[in-house]
């Protein structure tokens, strides 16, 4: 098992290398000359040339790529063109809110979507099933920002139960932290909950047809034990897969959600960086997100072995 995880980590290296190549190429693929952008409107061609040289933009592509990778391996993601701060420091500052938002959304999704899917499968064809699936279609169709503004209007402005926007770090206390994250998590989680609930229902429907479920009933087990132990554990592999894939959805959605709820996280940083053509920051963030995604996939593979004893590596 441990050797499998080590092998998987080694196997992610080529993936990360390809990702790094793509991320680095952004600078060349994207329109506009970063040196011109940094220099500003008033700069003379000599100024632009000086900036180009100081950033190494005049050297051959592979040399630039090589030295960029070398620096990253030493923990140096470069310096922001706009703020002149190290990119790693900027990301570090913004990591907390985004990570908090994603974890709360993930937990909310699992707690809500899986039981909904299980109940829908158990009561397949009934009114409850149709209501849950109808809600899923609804959740799937609404864009994050629409849900976000609706929630903020109802629960923050009208009912005044929760804050409209902002973020409080966890160090300021659990409730102030959570209070600010509830509405964003619901807005961000809508699509995700709909997706996971649908997959859970489909996987459970398949499992509930199996002979061993009949055996469990013949043993005198209650409905809860049959659904949540005998059936859900068998349905877990596709559910875990979708939860993992959904993390990519969360990353994309976080950018919009953070804007709607004014959360100072990586999403906001990404938008700002793109608008300013702050390439080192964009590269750093994309690289980080890719790394997180690769890591999540590794975790999913490990979780498979925990839920299904037939899967061994």
């Amino acid at each position, binding site marked *: 098992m441990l050797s499998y995880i080590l092998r998987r980590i080694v196997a992610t290296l080529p993936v990360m290398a390809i990702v790094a190549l793509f991320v680095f190429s952004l600078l060349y693929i994207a329109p506009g000359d970063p040196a011109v952008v940094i220099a500003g409107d008033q700069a003379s061609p000599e100024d632009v040339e000086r900036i180009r040289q100081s950033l190494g933009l005049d050297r051959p592509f592979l040399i630039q790529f090589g030295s960029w990778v070398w620096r990253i391996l030493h923990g140096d993601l470069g310096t922001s063109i706009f703020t002149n701060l190290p990119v790693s420091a900027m990301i570090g500052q913004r990591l907390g809110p985004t990570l908090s938002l994603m974890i709360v959304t993930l937990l909310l999704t699992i707690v809500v979507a899986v039981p909904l899917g299980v109940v829908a499968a158990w009561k397949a064809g009934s009114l409850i099933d149709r209501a849950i699936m109808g809600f899923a279609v609804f959740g799937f169709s609404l864009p994050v920002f629409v849900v976000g503004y609706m929630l903020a209007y109802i629960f923050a402005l009208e009912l005044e139960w929760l804050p409209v926007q902002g973020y409080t770090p966890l160090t300021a206390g659990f409730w102030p932290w959570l209070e600010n994250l509830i509405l964003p998590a619901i807005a961000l989680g809508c699509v995700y909950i709909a997706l996971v609930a649908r997959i859970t229902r489909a996987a459970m429907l398949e499992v509930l047809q*199996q*002979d*061993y479920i*009949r*055996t*469990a*009933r*013949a*043993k*005198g*087990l*209650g409905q809860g*034990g049959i659904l949540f*132990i*005998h059936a859900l*554990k*068998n349905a*877990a592999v596709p559910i875990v897969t979708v939860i993992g894939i959904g993390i990519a959805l969360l990353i994309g959605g976080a950018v919009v959600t953070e804007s709607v709820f004014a959360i100072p996280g990586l999403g906001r940083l990404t938008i700002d960086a793109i608008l300013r053509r702050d390439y080192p920051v964009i590269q750093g963030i994309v690289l980080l997100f890719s790394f997180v995604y690769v890591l999540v996939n590794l975790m999913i593979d490990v979780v498979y072995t925990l*839920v*299904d*004893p*037939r899967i061994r590596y």
Partner: protein
Amino acid sequence: MALLEVENLQTHFRTPGGINRAVDGVSFHVNEGETLAIVGESGCGKSVTSMSLMRLIPEPPGRIAGAIRFAGRDLLQLSDREMRAIRGNDISMIFQEPMTSLNPVLTVGRQIRETLMIHQGLDKAAAEAHAIEMLTLVGIPEPKRRVREYPHQLSGGMRQRVMIAIALACNPKLLIADEPTTALDVTIQAQILKLMLDLKRRVGAAIILITHDLGVVAEIAERVMVMYAGRKVEEAPVAELFRSPRHPYTQGLLGAVPKLGSSLTGTATRLAEIPGQVPDLRKPIIGCVFAGRCALATDLCRQYAPGLEEKGPRHIAACHYAAKGAVAA
């Protein structure tokens, strides 16, 4: 005294093509400690009958009517909760498919433990000890290791032994075995049958054996009930039935059994078959259910359904032409 009395059992399913009368008015009983075999070809309602006894038929689309009296209580009148207390405890079941009847993601030990913890209120440690005991009893070597293994680590025969261990863990009064040996190798079949008989003697359970294998019936049953198209067509003690089957369908079934070595002794004949198919149970059947496939059928058969009549000692059959007392051809 009868342990189980089934009266006019009707299990119907609503289907898009009409109501399927899978079991239509079947009555029988099982005495304490007795082995009753229910035989018939595929689709005759054997399995649906056994599932109905446990109330494992999904309702809807299924619907069970009639009465199933077990130790004096009508199972059809019990609440779900009361029924759960009976399943796996007083009545338990072994299924045809050992490869798929065990949960692949739970350990063998856990699957045996469960019934003990639900029905006998044992704690985990006591249930685990009892589970190991049960595995020893059903002849699984190294039970202490096996109890921690998963079904995919066991062979088909071993898995059926585990199913038997689960079924017998709570000392049931009635064991329903639905084609328990069909999916197994012939040598394993014999082992499993012997095991079931041994355990039946130890525990004193009655057995309902559902099968289409007449060899198995001759081996272990005391009484046989023959089903056709959702009805009972004949019932007799096992020796009596094999000696003088009265219903043409039963005669056909017995004729369709190949005789080992008959080609060597020069007595080989073409294997008999029953022409035609089981009638569509979604359409009302007028007259005898078997008339469409029966060589003896007359207009009488096609118009009036024969009732179950006494044809010999403890021997009943539903046929207008089955001779009373005499040995049929």
